[in-house]
């Protein structure tokens, strides 16, 4: 509030009635940010940037998309071939989805490494998981819209999962389908919800930033900002750093869009949906593969579904499962090793999710699934008690000065 001053009469008139300008001054310009953030802190703003790209490209795609089963596939091909720059808008949207998940996964792992989920940031962490869940629902429904073979069969497999629930299972599935199988009613409601959920994500992101601004950012040392020496104003330091990050990210993202636009996709989705013919390997999009592996690892249908949901629900409890008083892995040499092991295990689970459920992949998935839960339920609670962390610096500025010396 105190930072904002202007001689401009129009701006002060407006600001007295709706404090946009003083809010911008407080939250985006003067806002105190730790001076020692590294580039792992760019990924939040990158994710927000991609959200904007997804909304923009999505809205323009809808101008030409038809959500009836007899028209959907061809309407997407019309976008690709006849609409001016339609191919560009479609490939931006398609690859943007993969980028969104890459960025959010890096962001989540960053939080796990530096303990950004610990007090007082538990609610911030929870809102983040809600965003992740909304992203997964949005992406799942979005993938159905082109009505290719993978769209149809992916929708069939995942909606069928809900039949695992006793008594109400089949009713839930029929409710989801709006019929006796995935068909036109299903496609149309997925279209409606796919358009809706991104705006729910925008709302959640606003709450996420609000929660962040209440507790302020964590930093690589995991030591809270204590005084003015520890912080710098967000503008110009982090505005320019975030813009630079966006420049780098765009080169990565557009490299795929212009030269390998189908790298993350499945060829089968260029075949129109055929309810009579199942593709030999049904695979979800790559960002779902770790959860798909966990689902298939459990031989029981219901327990597999529960394990898959549990893999995400367990994240809500992370602030309490991790009993260590120290936030950052920088000062937790043992936890650091287990973090990388966990990371490798997640990659391994993703790899296994893309393989058929045969041979050594089966026991491997089961071990990897057990390890996933063991990390949260056994290792973290134990480590906090057993580990001897390194000495923390007195403050951020003390650490920064020490480095300069």
């Amino acid at each position, binding site marked *: 509030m105190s930072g904002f001053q202007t001689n401009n009469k129009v701006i002060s008139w407006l600001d007295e009635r709706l404090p946009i300008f003083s809010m911008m001054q407080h939250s985006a310009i003067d806002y105190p940010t730790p001076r020692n953030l590294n580039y792992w802190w760019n990924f939040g703003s990158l994710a927000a940037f991609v959200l904007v790209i997804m909304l*923009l490209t999505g809205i*323009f795609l809808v*101008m*030409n998309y038809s959500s009836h089963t007899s028209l959907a596939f061809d309407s997407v091909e*019309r976008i690709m*071939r*006849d*609409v*001016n*720059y*339609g191919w*560009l*808008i479609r490939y931006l949207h398609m690859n943007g989805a993969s980028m969104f998940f890459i960025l959010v996964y890096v962001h989540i792992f960053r939080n796990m490494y530096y303990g950004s989920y610990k007090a007082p940031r538990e609610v911030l962490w929870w809102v983040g998981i809600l965003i992740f869940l909304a992203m997964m629902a949005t992406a799942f429904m979005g993938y159905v819209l082109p009505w290719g073979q993978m769209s149809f069969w992916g929708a069939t497999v995942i909606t069928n999962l809900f039949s695992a629930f006793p008594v109400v299972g089949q009713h839930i599935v029929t409710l989801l389908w709006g019929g006796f199988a995935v068909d036109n009613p299903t496609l149309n409601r997925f279209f409606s919800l796919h358009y809706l959920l991104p705006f729910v994500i925008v709302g959640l992101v606003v709450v996420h930033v609000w929660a962040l601004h209440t507790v302020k950012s964590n930093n690589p040392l995991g030591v809270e900002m204590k005084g003015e020496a520890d912080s710098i104003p967000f503008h110009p330091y982090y505005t320019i750093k975030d813009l630079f990050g966006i420049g780098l990210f765009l080169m990565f993202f557009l490299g795929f869009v212009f030269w390998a636009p189908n790298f993350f996709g499945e060829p089968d989705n260029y075949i129109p949906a055929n309810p009579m013919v199942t593709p030999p390997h049904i695979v979800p999009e790559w960002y779902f593969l770790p959860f798909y592996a966990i689902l298939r690892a459990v031989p029981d249908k219901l327990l597999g579904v529960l394990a898959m949901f549990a893999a995400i629900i367990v994240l809500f409890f992370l602030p309490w499962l991790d009993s260590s008083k120290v936030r950052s892995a920088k000062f937790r040499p043992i936890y650091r090793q287990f973090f990388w092991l966990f990371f490798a295990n997640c990659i391994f689970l993703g790899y296994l999710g893309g393989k058929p459920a045969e041979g050594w992949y089966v026991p491997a998935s089961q071990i990897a699934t057990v390890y996933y839960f063991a990390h949260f339920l056994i290792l973290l609670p134990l480590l906090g008690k057993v580990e001897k962390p390194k000495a923390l610096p007195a403050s951020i500025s003390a650490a920064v000065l020490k480095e300069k010396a």
Partner: protein
Amino acid sequence: MADSATHAQPSSTDGQSRRDFLLYTTIAVGAAGTAAALWPFVHSMNPAADTLALSTTDVDLAAIQPGQAITVVWQGKPVFVRHRTAEDIAAAAKDDTADLRDKAADGTRVQKPEWLIVIGVCTHLGCVPLGQKAADPKGDFGGWFCPCHGSHYDTSGRIRKGPAPLNLPVPKYAFTSDTTIRIG
């Protein structure tokens, strides 16, 4: 790169303008890039290739008798093709000097006098005027009558009475043979 912030006064103005130059250059490049990035979205709203491909329509005139008219669709709009009788042509030519709201000589509105081709959309508020079928009212001037607000068009498609401001427009067309035309 010299640390201009800690040097003595004389070079700080150079440092300041160097700083500004980089900032302004970056802003300019960024603005240009953003505009270039937004153009594909705007242009995607322009007619697509398949729409543009349907921008011409071919019409076979052979079966249309004198006094008859047909309606064809061109670019989503109705087009009236009337095979005018000698009386129609004479009436149109006679009124070239009448008090016309939208002055136009009949000769300038046709390529062959017996074929009148106009877009069948009333220039008032867009209804399709009546007069194509034999039993339709043709208005006081033997051409077309728009039932929405009472505009009367003559045998050259010119507005004669009622609220419409302009004559029925003549689309671009060409005779591809004696009995066929291509509109658009």
